[in-house]
């Protein structure tokens, strides 16, 4: 067992808790332990608890991560600083609204626009992009992006990645329209300055910067 000091940025200010944890426990376990034993009013969100849903995304020691996939021991610190995800409006305590994230998501028209409904049942094999399909829309890349912090109109890495998947899908018919959205000077791919924060933070290991750089080259071709 180790003792941690947990500093949570709540809507009312910073609250500090002392929690004892076993080495295998995650930050989500920390939050449940606080909620059960010390402060039942603490607000946070989670669902699957196994890194599939992205609901428990939050800033952990200043880095956006999934609470359920972050073991407290690996933080290498006796202090755990928890805060809501940056670049998103806070609803309460550690809970943020993903509405701005999905507003950008909608701009690239995420649904598949296939000519024939019979095509929909067959997902084309494309090993080059298959890893990029793992996105769980957790908003971590959106929160980690330094450009998103200063350009509210920027689409953000996840929406751009979704557009990339659609563009590389041979069934899709609206490539030109998607490229037009991506080519926008202020909100499109040209805002990206290859900081690689999205790639570094993505809990699914998607190389989002690679997606953006490849789209930039597609637009120039």
């Amino acid at each position, binding site marked *: 067992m180790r003792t941690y000091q947990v500093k949570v940025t709540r809507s009312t200010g910073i609250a500090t808790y002392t929690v004892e944890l076993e080495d295998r426990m995650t930050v989500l376990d920390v939050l449940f332990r606080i909620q059960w034993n010390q402060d039942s009013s603490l607000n946070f969100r989670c669902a699957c608890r196994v890194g599939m849903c992205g609901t428990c995304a939050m800033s952990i020691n200043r*880095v956006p991560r999934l609470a359920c996939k972050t073991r407290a*021991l*690996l*933080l*290498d610190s006796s202090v755990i600083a928890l805060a809501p995800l940056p670049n998103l409006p806070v609803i309460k305590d550690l809970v943020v609204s993903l509405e701005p994230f999905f507003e950008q998501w909608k701009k690239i028209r995420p649904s598949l626009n296939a000519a024939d409904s019979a095509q929909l049942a067959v997902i084309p094999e494309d090993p080059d992009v298959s890893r990029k399909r793992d996105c769980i829309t957790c908003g971590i890349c959106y929160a980690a992006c*330094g450009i998103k912090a200063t350009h509210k109109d920027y689409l953000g890495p996840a929406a751009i990645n979704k557009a990339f998947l659609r563009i590389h899908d041979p069934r899709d018919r609206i490539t030109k329209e998607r490229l037009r959205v991506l080519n926008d000077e202020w909100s499109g791919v040209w805002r990206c*300055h*290859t*900081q*690689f*924060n999205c*790639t*570094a933070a993505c809990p699914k290991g998607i*190389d989002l*910067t*690679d997606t953006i*750089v*490849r789209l*930039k*080259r597609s637009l120039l071709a």
Partner: protein
Amino acid sequence: MNDLLRKYRWQFSGMVAHLIQRITGLLLLVYLFLHVRTVHALAEGPAAFDHAVSTFSNPFFKLLEIALLGAVILHALNGVRITLLDLGLAHNRQRQLFWAWSIGVGAVIFLAGAIPMFLFAVLK
């Protein structure tokens, strides 16, 4: 286990590279204005130019020259790294490219230039 965390922190080197590029870019912009202003003194005659240049002959400005060398090297090497990334080359090696190329090679070039500058310009 700490190794895993170090690896995670190491992944954010792209942001470090971005900040270095921005900061050195701004410093070079300041230098550029100073440089143009000094060279412009030539238009007012040799005496005015000599006077403008003499301002920079004291050891403080020699130290700033060494700092300028560092800024130019970092900005140039990191610029090459960014160009390679934009061309889709060495994309999955961007961290190594930053540390080995921009910082590692940059440090060697910097020391090769900074040591003689310090010995023969600052300490003379």
